[in-house]
Structure formats: C-alpha cells, structure tokens
C-alpha cells in the first residue's frame, strides 16, 4: 500500500496531468486539429471513460490486455478504463449507425488510461486524438485519411516526419486472420523485423515452400520507394513466388503511394511492408508516422473494415490517431498564450461598474479579471 506522502507527491504509473502554459498549449493544439478536421466535415465524438471489458476482450492483443486498468462494478461486472479510443468508438458507432447514415466522419480527442512500465516511456500514451472515416472503402478513402493526417501535422508544425505505409491485407492474403488470428506470431515477427522467424512462420503457418518463404521474409522487411518495390516484385513474379491475392495488395499499395506522391504533400511516404498493423482488427492499409527526435511513432492508423461488425453494423472504416503528448514538445507551431490571452485587471468603482467594464473588454475579444 502506498503511503500518504508518496501518494501526494506522485501520480500512479500511466496517469498524467498538465497545467497552466502546458495546458494552454495542449488545448491550443487540439483547437487547431479541430479546425482542420472540421473543415473536412468531421464531427466530434466523445467515448465513455469506462465500459464492459467482456465486450472488447477478443479484440485486444494479450500484450495490451496486461496494461488495461480493470475494475468491478456494483453488480460484479468487470469494467475497463478507456485504453484506446478506436475500440470504444467502434462499439458506440456500431450500435448507433444505420446503413443510411453512411459515410460518417468523426474525430475524437481524449485521455487514455493504461499502465506503463517505468522504464519504457516509448509507450507513453496519455492522450489520443484522431479521426475515423466510416462507411467508405477504396483508394479515395485511404487517400483522404493520409492527406488529412498530413494537413493536421502541417498545421501543428511537425518537421522532418515520414509516413511508413504497409498493409495488413498483404499478410491476410498469406495467412487468413479469422477467426483465431493464427497470424499473430507472424505479425509480431514481421513488425520486429525478425527475418529468420518470419521465414519459419511462413513455412509453418503459411504453408510456404522454403524459396517462397525466403522471398516473403525479404518482402516483409522491405522499406523503400515504389520503384524499389517494383524491382523486388519483378523477381517475385518471374520466379512465381507471389500469389494473385498478394500481388493485388502490393499493386494497391503502389497505386496509393503514386497518388500520394502526386499530391505534393509535406511528409515523405515510404512503402514499408513491415508495417502490418498492431491490432487484431486491422484489415487493409496500416501506417505509422515517425519524426526525428521522437523515440516512437507519433501517429498510427489504418483500415479496420470488420471492427464495427462486432457491434452491429458491417461498415468499413479507416482512420488515424495522433499521440499528441508524445509529439507536443517537438511541434514548431506557436500557440499564443501570454499577450493575446493575458486578462486585464479591472479596478475602481463598485462591483457592478467593474463588471460592466469587464464585459465591454470581453465583448471586444479580450479577457478581464474582476
């Protein structure tokens, strides 16, 4: 049991607070994000702070499940605190939406609560803001999300960032994900770039012959440009090491990266086939954004076409989330705090007179202290 003094002096692992200038900057950044996404037609949503754990249990990777704070309510049901906005949002959107409502564009910005190891701040996540485009499939929808992400970061001032774009669909073409996610070990080996393990898993779970497994291990380690990927694929096709489904997914990524490049966006996009999505519910594209000076991805996203079907409506969805606290100190955008928002101290006269004077200042867009 923690003693009173220690409890007073520190917060539990996984919790965070921010005040004054830090809070002003945080809110300012959120306002900017809201301004951008609202201009793209995204509406705000608010997810509950806690919900029933059992509803989400099968959708949470076991590694993540250990970091979830759980509690028991008065009826004995196990609840979980909001550890990820996407999951909570999926349930509530799934229950609320009908086919006729689609497509729906929403954005969120909220705290998330999860345990974190004291030694591993690379996993620090206290606040998630993001968007979801529900009810749209295909190239235009995927592009919309990638472009909007670029616009948001441009507004926030995030220099030297790169988008690494991969595909869960490529992995699913090799090893079907449903129903028990047998590709979990392979997914982890790919994400950690463990070449030998990927090869072994391709043979064991994907039923590949050694030559094809070796090629796939090389493929899943690929990072580079459209042209570089083309050269690798030429070999794959020549030696008949790729299935039709795998080729289709790779061509789709190439098309997406080509269209992205034509749009003249700020962030470089690299095709990175080790980006296969971290969650069991990912389906199509998967991406992470990295920035110089930050020890972990600053934003992540992808497609999750069947997630909402767990909660009532089978609608495709694609989106991203930004880990704002992770990136906040690296953003170059100036948030006005002192001069423009510094309140004027109103003095002299009765309270009523001071109130009237203060209201005049406020009506002109200023701030006033009574």
């Amino acid at each position, binding site marked *: 049991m923690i003693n009173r003094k220690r409890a007073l002096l520190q917060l539990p692992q996984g919790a965070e607070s921010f005040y004054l200038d830090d809070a002003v900057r945080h809110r300012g950044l959120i306002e900017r994000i809201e301004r951008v996404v609202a201009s793209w037609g995204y509406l705000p949503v608010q997810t509950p702070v806690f919900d029933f754990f059992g509803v989400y249990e099968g959708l949470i990777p076991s590694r993540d499940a250990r970091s979830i704070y759980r509690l028991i309510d008065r009826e004995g049901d196990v609840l979980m605190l909001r550890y990820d906005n996407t999951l909570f949002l999926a349930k509530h959107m799934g229950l609320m939406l009908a086919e006729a409502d689609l497509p729906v564009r929403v954005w969120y910005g909220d705290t998330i609560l999860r345990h974190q190891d004291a030694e591993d*701040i690379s996993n620090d996540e206290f606040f998630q803001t993001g968007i979801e485009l529900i009810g749209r499939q295909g190239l235009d929808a995927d592009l919309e999300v990638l472009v909007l992400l670029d616009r948001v970061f441009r507004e926030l001032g995030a220099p030297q*960032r790169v988008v690494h774009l991969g595909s869960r669909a490529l992995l699913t073409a090799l090893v079907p994900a449903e129903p028990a996610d047998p590709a979990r070990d392979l997914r982890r080996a790919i994400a*950690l770039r463990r070449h030998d393990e990927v090869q072994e898993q391709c043979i064991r779970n994907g039923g590949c012959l050694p030559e094809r497994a070796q090629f796939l291990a090389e493929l899943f380690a690929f990072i580079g440009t459209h042209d570089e990927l083309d050269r690798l694929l030429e070999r794959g096709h020549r030696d008949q090491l790729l299935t039709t489904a795998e080729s289709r997914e790779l061509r789709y990524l190439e098309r997406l990266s080509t269209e992205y490049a034509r749009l003249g966006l700020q962030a470089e996009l690299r095709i990175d086939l080790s980006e296969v999505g971290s969650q069991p519910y990912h389906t199509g594209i998967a991406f992470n954004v990295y920035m110089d000076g930050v020890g972990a991805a600053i934003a992540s996203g992808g497609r999750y076409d069947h997630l909402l079907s767990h909660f009532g409506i089978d609608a495709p969805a694609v989106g991203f989330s930004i880990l704002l606290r992770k990136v906040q100190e690296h953003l170059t955008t100036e948030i006005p705090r002192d001069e423009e928002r510094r309140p004027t101290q109103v003095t002299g006269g009765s309270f009523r007179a001071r109130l009237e004077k203060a209201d005049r200042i406020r009506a002109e867009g200023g701030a006033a202290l009574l």
Partner: protein
Amino acid sequence: MTAEASEPLTLALPKGRLMEQVLQFFEQFGFYFRISRRSLTTTDSQGRLKLILVKNTDLPVYVSHGIAGLGICGTDVLYESSAEFFELHTFAFGSTRMCLACRADHEPGADRRQLAVATKFSRFTHDFFHARGIPVQVIRLNGSVELAPVLGLAPYIVDLVETGTTLRANNLKITEDLAEIRVKLVCNPAYYKLHYRRVNELLGAIQGVSNHERA
C-alpha cells in the same frame, strides 16, 4: 522532407570489457574512437557514429527512449528489459553462459519443491523455471551474487559464467547451463524507420567484418 539527417548515428555502449571488444571490432572497418577516462560520449574520427557510454543495465532504457538509436549489449540485459527492439546483428565475441549454481557440497534435488534463487536476472529466472513447471522464489540482488549460497541467503544462484573461476573461488559449482548469452546490436524501431539507409550501411560493414572473421 526526409528525416535522413547528416548528424552521426548514435550508439549506446556499456562501459567495461565489452566496450573494449566493440571498439577493437569497429576499428576493423575504419571507425576509430578516442575515449578519455571520464568521457561519457565520443564521436568517431569521421563524425559518422556517436557513442554514448552507459551502465550495462541502463542501456535498454536509453535505446528505448530514443536517446541512443542503437545499442550493443547482451541478451541477458535485453531479456530483463520490457522494451522491444529490432535485433540487427549477433556478434561472435562476448558470448557467455547463464548458469544455475550452488555450493559444491549442496545436494541438488533435495529442495525441488520450491527453488530459492538469488540473482540479478529475476525475469529470466522466473520465466525459465516457470516454463519447466518449477516454482521458484527469486531473491533479487544487484551484485556479488556468489555470496548468497556462501552466507545462506539462498541455496542457488542464477548468474553469468565465463570461466567459472569466481564460482570455484567461492566453493560453488555449476548445476546446469540454462542459456547461451550473446552480444547483439539492437535498434530503437522508430530510429530504424527514420534512418534505415544509414543503419543498414553500418550493419553491412559490421556483417562484412563478422563474415570475414568467420571465414
């Protein structure tokens, strides 16, 4: 805008014997470092790689936080850390053994109901014996683990053994080799994604020397 900066890559390195081995190894492909007695950082003569000298057990923390993009350390230290890295290379040098040891006059098997083990490697010890279905009570120590059986703190220790000289000097014997410990080059995943071309170039040079040594 690309993140492939012209600044040197950063590599955390544990101070001590492993550092000497790594520096000798790096000299084979033209990376020369001058390290004064008290310096904690240094950059190679051509400004390509900056070393950050840290305590062995702190290395995963520095790499996980992205303070150093790369790190070289043993799998014993990596196992104890909760962070995940890209493991880019296994070096031929620096390997050692993780062993279970007890007093030379101790009868193994007499205390199989629950093993009491003193060790610096608590996570490894828990996982190893639990995988075998053996309950284990781990007593965490930070150094001079060999003292534990001698002074009666715990009948067993789990520790790194190179030559066995320290064990013998304390009248201890190896009961079992538990794992081979290797020295790895690891990389912070986000750092790799940002600097993969330059990291791969460095890796290519390292692998070139390793292959040459093997041949």
